[in-house]
C-alpha cells in the first residue's frame, strides 16, 4: 500500500499528517515506511528524528566530450532541446546544469565522441525511526532535477508494507514523480481562498492521473465553508479535519509529534488509515 500525502498549497499540514499517520500506524504494529519526497525542502526528519544509517549520492548522467574525437559537426547541439550542449565554430560547449539526461547527444554523435559521466544532484539518506523505515532526499543547492532524486527515494518502497509518501507542494513535475503509482493520494488543504484555489488544481492533477483521492482539512475552523462546499459539490470525501489548536501549532513549531502531545489524535489517524484502506479496496473491485 502506497499513500501519498500531497497538497496544492504549501504549509497546509502535509508533513504533520504524513508523519503522524506513519507513527500511529507503526505504533499499532504495522510495518511502516515513511518516504519524504519533498527533496527541495524535506522536513520529515525534524519530527521523526531518524537514525540515518545509509547515505548515497544521487547522480544523473551528463555528457562528456572527447574533443579530440569530435569533428565539430554540431549534430548534438541541433538535437538538444535544453541548451545543455551546443556547438560553436566547431567546438562543443557544455552546460551540465541544464541537461535532462535524455542521452540524445551520445546516441547521435557520429564519431562516438560523447560519453556519459555522472553529475551529483543530491543525496538520498535512509535509516530508522522507532522501528519504522525512514528515507528522504536532499537536493543540492542550485540543482534542478528534483524528479530524479525523488525516483531514488522511492526505491525504498516495499509493496507489502504501509508506505507513506510525503510529497512536495504544487502540481508540477516533482509532484507527479512522487505520486505516480500511489494507491491513494490524500490532499491536505486549509479552508481559505488560497487553500481552495490550490486544492482545485491538485484535484485536477490527481484526476488526470486517475488515482483515488480524498481531502484532509487542516486548521478547519480558521476560514470559510467554501472548501467543504466544493468537496460536497464535487463528491470528494473529506477524511479528516484538524482544528486550529494553538497547542498543535506550538508542538509543530518545536518539531514534535501531535500524537505525543495530544495522544487522542492517534485514534484519529488510525481511523484516517481505515477510511483510506476501504476506499482503495472499493476502487480495486
Amino acid at each position, binding site marked *: 500500500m502506497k499513500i501519498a500525502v500531497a*497538497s*496544492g*498549497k*504549501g*504549509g*497546509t499540514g502535509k*508533513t504533520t499528517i504524513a508523519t503522524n499517520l506513519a507513527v500511529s500506524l507503526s505504533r499499532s504494529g504495522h510495518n511502516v515506511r515513511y518516504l519524504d519526497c519533498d527533496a*527541495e*525542502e524535506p*522536513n520529515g526528519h*525534524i519530527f521523526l528524528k531518524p537514525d540515518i544509517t545509509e547515505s548515497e549520492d544521487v547522480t544523473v548522467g551528463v555528457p562528456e566530450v572527447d574533443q579530440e574525437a569530435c569533428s565539430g559537426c554540431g549534430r548534438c547541439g541541433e*538535437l538538444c*532541446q*535544453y541548451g545543455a550542449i551546443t556547438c560553436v565554430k566547431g567546438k562543443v560547449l557544455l552546460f551540465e546544469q541544464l541537461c*535532462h*539526461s*535524455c*542521452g*540524445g547527444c551520445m*546516441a*547521435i554523435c557520429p564519431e562516438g565522441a560523447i560519453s556519459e559521466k555522472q553529475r551529483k544532484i543530491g543525496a538520498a539518506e535512509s535509516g530508522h525511526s522507532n522501528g519504522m523505515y525512514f528515507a528522504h532526499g536532499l*537536493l543540492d*543547492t*542550485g*540543482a*534542478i532535477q*528534483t524528479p530524479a532524486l525523488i525516483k531514488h527515494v522511492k526505491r525504498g518502497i516495499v509493496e507489502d508494507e504501509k508506505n507513506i509518501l510525503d510529497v*512536495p*507542494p*504544487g*502540481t*508540477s*513535475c*516533482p509532484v*507527479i514523480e512522487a505520486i505516480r503509482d500511489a494507491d491513494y493520494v490524500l490532499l491536505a488543504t*486549509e479552508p*481559505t*481562498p*488560497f487553500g481552495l*484555489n*490550490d486544492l482545485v*488544481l491538485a484535484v*485536477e*492533477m490527481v484526476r*488526470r*492521473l486517475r488515482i483515488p483521492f480524498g481531502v484532509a482539512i487542516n486548521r478547519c475552523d*480558521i*476560514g*470559510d465553508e467554501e472548501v467543504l462546499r466544493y468537496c460536497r459539490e464535487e463528491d470528494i470525501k473529506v477524511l479528516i479535519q484538524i482544528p486550529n489548536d494553538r497547542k498543535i*501549532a*506550538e508542538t*509543530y*513549531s*518545536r*518539531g514534535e509529534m501531535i500524537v505525543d502531545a495530544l495522544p487522542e489524535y492517534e485514534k484519529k489517524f488510525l481511523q484516517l488509515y481505515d477510511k483510506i484502506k476501504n476506499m482503495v479496496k472499493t476502487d480495486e473491485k
Partner: protein
Amino acid sequence: MKELVVISGKGGTGKTSIAAAFASLAPKAVIADCDVDAADLHLVLGPAIKEESDFSGGREAAVIPDRCTACGKCAEMCRFDAITLDGPANEGVGKTYAVDPISCEGCRVCVEFCPADAISFEPAINGKWFVSDTRFGPMVHARLGIAEENSGKLVTLIRKKAKELAEKESKDMLLCDGSPGTGCPVIASIVGADLVLIVTEPTLSGRHDLERVARLTANFGIKTLICINKADINPEVSDMIESEARENGLKVVGRIPYDEAFTKAQIMKATLTEYTSGAIAENIKTMWREIIYELG
C-alpha cells in the same frame, strides 16, 4: 528599476499575503506572480485581464499511428519511460507505440531515431499567461497547465514581460511573488533580482527551509532579507532564526505576530493593509520602509 522577489522556502508562511500588502504600498510597481504552480496572488488583487497568451515551454512527441511499424526503437531510446506499446492498431501491426504526454520531457530523441518517421514534434501548450490591471497597477501572471513541465521557463517569461511593461510604463519597481522550494521555478524567479525577501515562520521546519533557501540566494549572490511571520508562535525559535541570520550577514526586517487578519483579509479579497489599519498593518508598513531603504 529595482526588482524585489518575495520567496519562502517553506510553504504557508504568509508569503503571498505579504507580497499582496506590498503591492498596495508600492504605487509605482509592476506586480508579477511567479508562483506559477499555485498562483494565489490574483485572488486578492482581482486582476482584470487585458491580454492573454498561450505559453509553450517546449515541444511534445506524439506517435502517428498510421506510420508506426512497432519496431520499438523509440521506447528503447526513451529515458523517461514515456513510450509504451499502447497505441491503436494500423494496417500493418496489431498495436502501435504511444507517448504518454505526462512523462514526455520533449527531448526529441524518439523523433530523431524513429526509422519510419512516425513521430511528430509540435509545440506543446503548457499554460497561459496574462497581462492585467489591478487597483495597484499592472500585473503579469500565469496559469501553468496541470502536470506540465517548464515552470522555470514560464517564470522567466513572466519576469521578462513584467520588466518590459515596467519600462514601457516608466515604473520604478518590479514586485515578484515567488514559489516555495529551492528548485527550478525558484531559481528562475530570483536570478538577477536586486533583492530577495524570505518569509519564514518560527518552527523548526521553517528554520530548516530558510537555511536551505538562503543558501540558494547566497549561491546566486543576491542580497537577502528575512521576515519572520507568526513570530510569537515560538519566540525562542524566532530568536534562534534571528541570531543565525545575523551570523550569516542576513538582516531580519520584520517580526510579524500571528494574526487572524491574514486569513480574514484573504476571505475579503483584500490586502492586509486594506483590511486593517491596526498593529499588523503598521508592522508591515515599517518592514516595507526598511525594504525600500535596503533596495536603495
